[in-house]
């Protein structure tokens, strides 16, 4: 179910009413969230339920074990029962096609039981580490098989064939389960934080499973941390009308970014990237710019919808985007773009690798490795790896030149500051666009072709002479300018929810402005939504 579909709106409307009817019984609400989230996820494909069930089961038990305790047998049995029941339900939904899910869930349950029993027999710190390894192997294994098997196989074969060796490998078509990159990282972070003694585990399977499967953020994030979100499942949620209003508004704003901006820019991007080698400079430039806003509108739009929905249910999800295109340096960009992923990579990859504590060379190595894997997380394709490597390289470069240190020491309010920060912003914008070109292109060759045309157009001035006549330039400006206007206001007022701020302000003028903002969003959604709905880009990750 897409958030911008009638079926989801109907589902949420019913869910919302039932959920708040149970406000006095927050444990029952968690159960409702769990069932609702599994229903939501199973709607995509009921087979996916086994995978999220497995990740949940393993990390629930591993979390208990990684804290140093021996997971109580009763709790483990209960968790296994939940998992096998989930498998049975998934199987019975469409028995003729999915009967195998029942023996699979039983088999996997038995395997988990066997492994956990053996880990339990270990003693001392080895046992804690074993639980951590169990979680890592399960979650990274799921990712490896379902996301990267085809990619690595094909790359392996290609590498050998370039050496003149033909290798036959089994061709297996593996479906990429939607959201797998998000929930595996989320469950991993739970176990790792417990192992690091940064939080205590929960012994309530329902609370944990609801946290993992929480439908507003299940499919495309934000990647929540257990120590931030799980406590919200372990306390009553208070009904507040203001919370529901601001959540609904945030949802609408996200919907606007997705349906009006991202989806309308998609055809421009497709036209430019269909055949980069033969595109002219103006179209390529507009195409790259359009993609920058398409991916932003798509992803930040989804994040806002997720946060809005969660807020309407009494939960506060983390901020995932903070005006990333205002960034002046790569490190600032990564503090503003996909914040949940960048902080996850920082805390669970960069810092464990040594961070910046091992000298300059090790720091650059750690930056590159982190960004390479960050690129790979986005997709099983060399273009994503290249994008990650590109960002790793510019992060390292900026660090070598100490640009952040010098730039942010200059007062922005001065003339020198305006000039320097302005220049830094221009350079970072250019670098961001180059990076996005790799992200969007179908191949490395296409990416370089597109970049070459883009650069040539800028350097020769050709793009400035022809871009004004391009129909797509007008369309781009039409959809993007309102967003840019709002973002400038958000930056100026240092608030990302300026519409809510205005609507809830005691000032009648501010409320009037807020009403007009809201009417603009609603009218745009009604009358300017794209002709053909586009899939969310980040669902592919």
């Amino acid at each position: 179910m897409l958030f911008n579909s009638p079926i989801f709106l109907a589902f949420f409307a019913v869910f919302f009413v039932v959920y708040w009817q149970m406000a006095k019984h927050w444990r029952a609400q968690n159960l409702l969230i769990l069932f609702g989230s599994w229903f939501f996820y199973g709607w995509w494909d009921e087979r996916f339920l086994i995978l999220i069930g497995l990740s949940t089961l393993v990390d629930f038990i591993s979390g208990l074990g990684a804290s140093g305790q021996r997971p109580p047998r009763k709790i483990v049995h209960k968790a296994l029962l939940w998992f096998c029941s989930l498998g049975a339900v998934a199987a019975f939904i469409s028995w003729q096609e999915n009967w195998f899910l029942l023996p699979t869930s039983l088999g996997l349950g038995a395997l988990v039981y066997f492994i956990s029993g053996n880990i339990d027999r270990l003693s001392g710190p080895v046992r804690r580490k074993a639980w951590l390894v169990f979680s890592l192997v399960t979650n990274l294994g799921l990712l490896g098989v379902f996301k990267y098997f085809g990619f690595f196989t094909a790359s392996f074969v290609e590498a050998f064939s370039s050496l003149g060796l033909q290798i036959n490998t089994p061709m297996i078509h593996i479906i990429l389960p939607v959201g797998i990159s998000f929930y595996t990282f989320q469950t991993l972070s739970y176990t790792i934080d417990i192992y690091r003694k940064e939080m205590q585990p929960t012994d309530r399977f329902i609370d944990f499973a609801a946290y993992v499967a929480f439908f507003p953020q299940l499919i495309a994030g934000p990647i929540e941390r257990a120590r931030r979100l799980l406590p919200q499942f372990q306390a009553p949620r208070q009904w507040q009308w203001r919370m529901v209003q601001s959540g609904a508004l945030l949802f609408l704003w996200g919907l606007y970014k997705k349906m009006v901006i991202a989806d309308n820019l998609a055809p421009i991007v497709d036209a430019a990237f269909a055949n980069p080698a033969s595109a002219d400079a103006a179209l390529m430039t507009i195409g790259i710019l359009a993609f920058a806003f398409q991916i932003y509108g798509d992803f930040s739009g989804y994040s806002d919808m997720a946060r809005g929905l969660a807020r309407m249910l009494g939960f506060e999800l983390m901020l995932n985007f903070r005006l990333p295109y205002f960034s002046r340096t790569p490190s600032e960009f990564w503090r503003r773009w996909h914040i949940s992923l960048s902080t996850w990579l920082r805390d669970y990859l960069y810092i464990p690798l040594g961070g910046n504590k091992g000298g300059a060379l090790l720091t650059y190595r750690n930056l590159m490795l982190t960004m390479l894997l960050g690129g790979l997380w986005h997709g099983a394709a060399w273009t994503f790896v290249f994008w990650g490597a590109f960002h790793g390289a510019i992060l390292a470069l900026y660090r070598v030149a100490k640009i952040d240190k010098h730039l942010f020491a200059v007062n922005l309010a001065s003339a020198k500051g305006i000039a320097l920060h302005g220049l830094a912003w221009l350079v970072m914008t250019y670098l961001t666009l180059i990076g996005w070109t790799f992200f969007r292109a179908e191949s490395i060759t296409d990416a370089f072709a597109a970049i070459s045309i883009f650069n040539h157009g800028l350097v020769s001035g050709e793009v400035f002479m022809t871009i004004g006549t391009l129909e797509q330039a007008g369309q781009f400006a039409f959809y993007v300018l309102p967003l840019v206007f709002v973002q400038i206001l958000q930056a100026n007022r240092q608030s990302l929810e300026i519409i809510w701020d205005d609507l809830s302000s005691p000032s009648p003028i501010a409320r009037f402005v807020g009403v007009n903002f809201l009417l603009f969003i609603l009218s745009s959604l009604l009358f300017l939504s794209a002709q053909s709905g586009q899939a969310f880009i980040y669902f592919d990750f």
Partner: protein
Amino acid sequence: MKNIFKISLLSIGLTVYGLIFIEVFLRLFAPQAIMPRHVVGSEYGVRMNEPGAIYRQKTAETSAIIHINSLGLRGPQGQNLEKPNGTKRIVLFGDSYFMGYETDYADSFAARLGNEMRQRQCEVEIVNLAVSGFGTAEMLRTLEARGPDFAPDVVLFQWHHTDPADNKRADLYRVKDGTLVSTGKNYLPANDMRKRLQQQPAYRLISEHSHAYAALREKTATTIKNLMTGGALVKRPGQVASFGVASDKMVSSAAPQDRDDRPPATALDLALLDAAEQRSFEMEADFYVVDIPSWHSRTQFSSGFRLLPDQRRARENYLSPIARFRKEADATRKIYWEKGHMHLTPFGNQLLAEEIASKLTDSPQERTQLACGPKSDALAANAPTR
């Protein structure tokens, strides 16, 4: 009490302000096609054009004036039931395409067809019984009720991919044991309500000038049609939509040759066409079915005849301009309007008229009633009797 009053006042105020906002918003950012429709219920149970109505249609691309004469036809004023001497009558049955929406009369298919026929030495009068929104069932009902009055020599029935859905929704006829039977029902959708509303000057003003009204009416009509046909219509380019609700002209976003997801014409549709052909023969008129292709892009179209069985569309009296459209299509000129309701432009109507006129006059099929044109002498000598 004071609170309730305050809340009510605020709600009304916000609603009015919201509607004004939407109106301004649409005029600035998404001008709508203003396409009022003036139809009334006829005594034969389907809609007809309101006699004497004059109204303007306006889109971001064009504007047109629609005059309906005293006979309820879009045509020259002073048209009579009686056929002028020495003139052949071509009677059109169709929907807004044959009516010539979004073009002035002189640029409509009807007028251009008349011109083309006259250029081919055929003195004809075009009688346009097309009504916007019609399907084959309504055309047949109109043919049965009014056709004999006009003594047609040629009957042209329009066919478009919306017809199967329209025929099902109208429920005027059914196929019983292989035979077409009338259900005896009328089909006058929202007629009473429209009649009452049209009497209000405020409504007429809004329906003929308001972009907000046009947009909301379009969405409502499409949603209702969706629900009545039980299917999801695909969005139409140029007509904004949200949440999968589309406008009333179905258009595919897939390449025409790849699109096979529209249901084929049913037994009802084929029976309706056969019945129309039979009624025409009974009136001693030649019968033709004219395809109105669907727009996909300026250079891509798909024929409505794709919904018909192969044997049917191969018939000589089933005429399609699609080959000509594809030949003349060019990224720089429009055969269909793109920002309104996708009707044919004057150029599109001209192409259609040329194709139909040439097939009417140059067809190798033995000519019967339309004894005019370059091959008329040779054909007239061999005219079969009915």
